């Protein structure tokens, strides 16, 4: 006898943010096929902004009802729309919107950051032809929307299979986008391949973990697993192994040590607007997933997982910081700094304190804004060849020498983002650091907070190095007053290794563009300062939601 098929009732309203974005993505693919080439770009940009903006508005509309009811359990737990979900979805939508702006920006020669024809091999006749025709790869916008859609679901789901599907939906477009850079295409393709191979490996571990957990608990829904965790019946090793494998997959996505090795290469090789998006938005989604796994699904296992969480947290902070100190490429520097930041965010997770989730979300907001802004600035700093044509990005620190003096506004914005990364007061980054370290001290994990502040102090040097290069270049020489031998510094305690500016073969400039990226930089900078000076309202709002719906 075949059981009667029951049509599930679907509450559409709580799904709207996801529907907007994924719907727009599908429409975008169709438009790509039917619209004439000239129209594609403006329509795609408009559609992307509309979709992400719509998602943002939908989140705002849903906020009231969710706060009143505690949240919705949609599609039998496939999507859990509770407070943390809404905050994370709002964050992702905002960061995606800013990233679209950065992606859309073009130089005066109508060149964006993406290869005119990705399928043409670098240096081939096809590529030259595509370049001459001024072709544009407008598929990037639907791809970005697909990734965003995956992120919106990833941290908001209540069962492991949906989570896996979301993981793939968010990852596959990113693998592609990472390989689409206009300049330094081989490096970009290498980044893409690396990201794909390691990502596929992490996905495999993740799904293997899901299988083990299912074997141990007989459930793939968070609530089912959570209920089974306190009373494991002889299958505890299985459960534990599953949990560790699952977390490995998630740690890979946030770039936590020892699963961070892809980060520097991919960050460096990917088109800069994509790097910013990847670094900022993926972290929001993946950290919400980690929070859900650690605080909801495996809460009963908290004690057993402590060793794993602490090791990864501490290792991320230390390795990320130390490696960032010795980088001479600005994108690699920010990549390692993002590893360190993953560690700082994990401090809030590992605290296992009620303040943990809200502090993590605020930190991600601060970090995300600074990241999108910083990479937007990097995308504008270009080499200019002797003939005056703007070429590739100037990412070597030596090339940034004196940039702050020559371009005061953009320079000041970049310094602001760096200060926010460093956690200097009156920037959003400081409030975020304060929140996660508070959660750690309050959750009796004070050694993490102590290591965290020490790592922050060390990491500050990496950022200061950039500021020094930008504002106090070595090339600028005032009259030498001949005191070199006499008043040498008293000690080498600070151990300063400053970047020397190499002889410039090409000049470096902040390129003139259509201004989209500047808007994104401006918004990021204003929000970074606002959230640093008056974080009260946002913190209050995030604080309300710290409880997860099971």
């Amino acid at each position, binding site marked *: 006898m075949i059981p009667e098929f029951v049509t599930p009732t679907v509450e559409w309203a709580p799904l709207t943010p996801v529907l907007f974005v994924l719907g727009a993505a599908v429409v975008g693919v169709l438009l790509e096929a039917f619209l004439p080439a000239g129209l594609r770009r403006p329509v795609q940009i408009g559609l992307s902004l509309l979709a992400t903006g719509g998602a943002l508005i939908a989140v705002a509309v849903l906020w009231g009802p969710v706060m009143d009811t505690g949240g919705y359990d949609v599609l039998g737990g496939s999507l859990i729309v509770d407070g943390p979900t809404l905050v994370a979805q709002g964050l992702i939508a905002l960061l995606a919107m800013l990233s679209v702006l950065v992606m859309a920006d073009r130089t005066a020669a109508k060149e964006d950051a993406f290869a005119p024809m990705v399928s043409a091999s670098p240096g081939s006749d096809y590529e030259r032809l595509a370049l001459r025709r001024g072709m544009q790869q407008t598929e990037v916008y639907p791809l970005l929307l697909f990734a965003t859609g995956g992120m919106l679901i990833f941290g908001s789901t209540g069962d492991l299979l949906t989570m896996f599907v979301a993981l793939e939906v968010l990852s596959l477009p990113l693998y592609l986008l990472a390989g689409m850079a206009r300049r330094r295409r081989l490096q970009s393709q290498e980044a893409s391949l690396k990201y794909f191979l390691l990502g596929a490996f992490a996905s495999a571990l993740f799904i293997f973990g899901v299988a083990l957990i299912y074997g141990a608990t007989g459930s793939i829904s968070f609530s089912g697993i959570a209920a089974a965790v306190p009373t494991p019946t002889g299958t505890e090793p299985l459960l534990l192994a599953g949990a560790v494998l699952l977390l490995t997959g998630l740690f890979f996505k946030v770039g936590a040590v020892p699963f961070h090795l892809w980060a520097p290469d991919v960050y460096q090789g990917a088109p800069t607007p994509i790097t910013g998006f990847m670094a900022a938005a993926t972290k929001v989604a993946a950290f919400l997933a980690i929070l859900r796994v650690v605080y909801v699904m495996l809460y009963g296992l908290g004690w057993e997982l402590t060793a794993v969480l602490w090791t990864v947290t501490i290792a991320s902070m230390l390795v990320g910081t130390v490696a960032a100190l010795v980088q001479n490429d600005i994108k690699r520097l920010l990549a390692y700094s993002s590893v360190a930041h993953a560690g700082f965010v994990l401090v809030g997770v590992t605290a296992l304190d009620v303040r943990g989730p809200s502090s993590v979300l605020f930190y991600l907001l601060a970090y995300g804004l600074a990241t999108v802004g910083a990479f937007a600035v990097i995308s504008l700093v270009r080499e200019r060849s002797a003939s005056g044509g703007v070429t590739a990005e100037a990412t070597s620190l030596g090339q940034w020498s004196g940039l702050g003096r020559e371009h005061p506004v953009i320079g000041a914005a970049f310094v602001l983002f760096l200060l926010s990364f460093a956690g200097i007061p009156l920037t959003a980054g400081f409030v975020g650091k304060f929140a996660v370290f508070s959660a750690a001290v309050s959750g009796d994990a004070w050694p993490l907070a102590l290591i965290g502040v020490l790592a922050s102090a060390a990491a500050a040097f990496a950022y200061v190095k950039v500021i020094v290069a930008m504002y106090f270049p070595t090339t600028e020489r*005032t009259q030498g007053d001949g005191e070199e031998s006499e008043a040498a510094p008293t000690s080498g305690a600070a151990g300063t290794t400053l970047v020397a500016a190499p002889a410039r073969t090409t000049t470096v400039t902040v390129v003139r563009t259509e201004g989209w990226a500047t808007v994104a930089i401006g918004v990021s900078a204003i929000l970074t300062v606002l959230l640093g000076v008056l974080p009260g309202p946002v913190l209050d709002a995030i604080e309300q939601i710290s409880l997860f719906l099971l």
Partner: protein
Amino acid sequence: MENFPWLTTLMVLPLLGATVLWLPTSLRARAREIALGVSVLVLVVAGLAALSFDTSAASTHQLTETYSWIGSLGVSYALGVDGVGLVLILMSVLLVPLVILAAWREQGSGTHVTDNLRRYLALALVLEAFMIGVFAARDVFMFYVLFEAMLIPVYFMIGGYGKDSSRRRHAAVKFLLYSLFGGLIMLFGVIGIGLNGPDGPGRFLTENLTGLALDPVTERWFFLSFFIAFAIKAPMFPVHTWLPDAAEQAPAGTSALLVGVLDKVGTFGMLTLCLPLFPNASQWAAPVIIVLAVISVVYGALLAIGQKNMYRLVAYTSVSHFGFIVLGIFAFTSTSVAGSSFYMVNHGLSTGALFLLVGFLVARRGSARIADFGGLQKVAPVMAGLFLVVGLSALSLPGLSTFVSEFLVLVGSFARHPAAAIVAASGVVLAAIYILWLYQRVFTGGVPADTEEQTRRGLVALSSLPDLRGIERWAVAPLIGVMLVLGFWPSPALTLVRPPAEQTLQHVGVEDVPTRTAEVDQ
């Protein structure tokens, strides 16, 4: 005028001034006048604020303003000053216009105001706002925020406007890293003490955090996290090495603000945060700190004697002076603590003036090397006279206010730690050596002709050095005037700093040791 937000006004005015200087308007051309005007206005407003301060209740915080700032963290925007905070604010706002005057001709030639000078003035104004805020903050979180935020303008003031570029960057980075390191360690303590505060609004207010019964071990950790940050800032031996580098490389005005005001935040923090918040730990650590302070006094003075560069010399004298201040604070007698509070003000005036004068000298000659000078008394008599008076204030000549404070610190410390006070007193003798010897080498004797090597370095001939100009005289004269007035008539300042000192000792919970200094006090 009862509830007028004096302190907020004091902070907002310089920020507004800085904004005007930053905006691309035609006002930029008059940057010097605007900056000077704003800083004088701040000085006037601070004077008015001081008039509405009730001196009979100097130990309580007055002119208070309290608002919730970050509700969910329990952070307040809370301002208010007791006697110590008030005198330090007055000292700071006096110093800023003089530094601006001193920079009048430094980078701009004639009437032309360069972008560099404009930015420098804007940074100085931002710094002034933060300095006022940090002396007035009644909330530990707010104190911390301003304490750290101050670093950024100073960093750019050192790194962007000094002399030799590569060593200047080195000095700026060293300053920033030392300070950030201390500051982030302090962050740990701020978080910790905040979590021990009362729940809800006002969690970080100093009055709510005073008198907590903390676990002794925890208290020591927190104390250390604060103290290390303050010791770096002060700067004390053995974490003083950033100061000579920074002072040597920065423009003289920056050094005057850095050493005169900014470093006081370190000792101010020890006095107003470490002692009341962590009384038991303060007593526990006092012996070690006193030893370090005495080492600072003697070591700083000895190194000052050996310096060949004038900026470095003045920087090392400050290490020595800060040793005195810390000694007085941790000797725990009302006389020594009050003396230290007064010392902070006097040192700001004296060292500020000294840095400005050295700056004028160096700008004229084009070298900071002491060996490049000689016999200037004949060439620049006004400069020589002012330099002598300021120098004598640095060695605490009676009749100048520095004498009163040094005397109080030594007498007060002697009552509790005779040995430490006796060793520290040798710092007074050493001070005579480094100042008078400096004066002798620079100003007395005949005017030497330039050696071949000096000519090659493009130095301006000594015999043609101009004396102090009008503006420059006015940049130094007010400081000397205040030191003279307070030297003969210190009681206005002492009535402001003594009650807070007694109050602090009550918080620490030690018996005061009476000293026979009534005649100086009154």
